């Protein structure tokens, strides 16, 4: 349909219907602005494993790093005509070692001293989301609690989306808050705090626009502010500012190709924070419908600049300092593949992803940290929907 508006039709008959309806809602997608038509129950199990560090990068300690087993369980159900409720439970079983500090190795190059004996920790997160739907939009309230040996977080999030008159544009706004408490476990390595707290608040505003029958685009801006204890208590040479302000500008684009029965998915995010880190994230994916199957490969490129107070070997005399590889400049490439099968009311999903990072792959200059992370993650999941 080119250049035809809904009300641009000539007969008086249709004009009167059009006038009647011009302000009425339409569904922008099958999921928008109506509670789900069915109840969904699902389970996912994921395995995350980091590559061992190169022998040359480790001065002392184990070369092996983190492994995490993640189990996600959820139920999401419509309640009455206008509400839905979701309950999410997630368990993360973590084990392994992580970098304690970076020193000068026997070869004179920076080398990692690992945290020694294997750490075991378990994190349990429980979240409840209620959502209200009306003709032109929906709003949700989510409460979540996360608990592990050394970290507790309670967070609240509110979001609302509403559609324009012609339902071609959707506005979204959200606000969230998280209150976290850090209580480091002291048996592993020297720790200098007992209990610290951290408050984080975040705002997001975005808009999506239908461009044609097969194209949709969105853009959004977010601001996050943290105040409190942001230092990593398990790192020997880590002292970070007590404030952290972060901005993101994110955008996404989807285009459906009906001849191929598939869609191109492009997402880009620009990030900038008060610690001097800027980053770019670009993700490109393809979603191929194949009858009951879907194959969705994707590629992700990420690059960040180092934080102002980062150096490969921390200067403990400075106001703020860190040798954490996560604050260094580097680039990372991710490749993943997702495969889902729909069998009646059941859906099976499998996904695998490889992540590799390298100081040379970044767009920003800076000294490379010796402990950049590479990992695999894989997921299997089963979802059941019933009316």
């Amino acid at each position, binding site marked *: *349909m080119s250049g035809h508006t809904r009300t641009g039709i000539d007969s008086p008959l249709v004009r009167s219907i059009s006038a009647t309806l011009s302000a009425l809602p339409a*569904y922008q997608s099958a999921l928008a602005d109506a509670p789900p038509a069915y109840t969904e129950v699902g389970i996912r199990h994921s395995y995350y494993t980091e590559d061992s560090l190169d022998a040359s990068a480790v001065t002392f300690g184990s070369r092996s790093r983190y492994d995490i087993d993640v189990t996600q369980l959820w139920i999401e159900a419509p309640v009455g*005509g206008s509400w839905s409720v979701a309950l999410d439970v997630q368990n993360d079983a973590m084990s392994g070692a992580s970098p304690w500090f970076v020193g000068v190795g026997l070869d004179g190059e920076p080398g990692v001293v690992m945290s020694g004996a294997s750490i075991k920790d378990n994190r349990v997160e429980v979240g409840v989301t209620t959502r209200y739907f*009306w003709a032109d939009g929906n709003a949700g309230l989510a409460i979540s609690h996360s608990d592990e040996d050394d970290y507790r977080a309670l967070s609240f999030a509110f979001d609302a989306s509403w559609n324009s008159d012609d339902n071609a544009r959707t506005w979204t706004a959200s606000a969230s808050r998280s209150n976290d408490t850090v209580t480091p476990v002291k048996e592993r390595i020297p720790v200098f705090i007992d209990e610290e707290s951290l408050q984080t608040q975040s705002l997001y505003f975005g808009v999506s626009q239908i461009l044609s029958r097969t194209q949709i685009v969105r853009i959004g801006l977010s601001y996050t502010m943290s105040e409190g204890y942001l230092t990593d208590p398990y790192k020997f040479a880590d002292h970070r500012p007590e404030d952290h302000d972060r901005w993101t500008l994110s955008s996404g684009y989807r285009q459906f190709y009906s001849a191929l029965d598939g869609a191109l998915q492009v997402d880009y995010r620009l990030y900038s924070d008060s610690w001097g880190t800027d980053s770019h994230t670009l993700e490109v994916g393809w979603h191929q419908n194949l009858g009951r199957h879907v194959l969705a490969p994707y590629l992700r490129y990420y690059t960040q600049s180092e934080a102002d107070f980062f150096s490969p070997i921390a200067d403990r005399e400075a106001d703020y300092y860190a040798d954490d590889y996560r604050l260094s400049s580097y680039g990372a490439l991710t490749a993943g593949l997702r495969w889902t099968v729909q069998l009646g009311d059941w859906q099976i999903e499998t996904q695998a992803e490889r992540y590799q990072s390298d100081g040379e792959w970044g767009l920003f200059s800076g000294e490379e940290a010796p402990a950049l992370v590479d990992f695999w993650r894989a997921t299997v999941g089963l979802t059941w929907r019933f009316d």
Partner: protein
Amino acid sequence: MTGIKIMRLPVLFFASLLSLLHPATAPADGAITKAPDFRLPAIANADGTIGLDSYLGKVTYLDFWASWCGPCRLSLPALDALYKELRSEGLEVVAVSVDVVDEDSLDFLQRYSVSYPVAIDTTGDIARSYAVGGMPSGYLIDRTGVIRAVHVGFKRGDEEKLRQEIMELLEE
């Protein structure tokens, strides 16, 4: 919020919230709208083509739906129940799928089977002539062929309102 709505407040966030507190507004006086006629290929519960002209003299609910429409998973079974209940009193239901491909509709009807006739409008011409404002959209047409109510969208509980409107027309 999917009842008969002839006039609506501007679509604003808070206005929408507020409008939930008010009952649906009545049709404007004198807004007489004849249902546009059509002839479309049948895909279920009828042979050949389906035309609105053969329903003149009956209370008819004309429903536009699509296989990709989420709320249609609720509206089709609900309409089928109403049809089975009120058919003997003179209610007719005609559904028009706006799917581009027949198979998508047939797959959907296998999952959510209905007993009323279903036609398909792959070009969207008939949906356009009815100025369909959302999916699903239902038009309640009286015995003289005049559109008396329009339902856009569908949620649980809407079948009650719809049943009442149909009963009123059947008693006319």
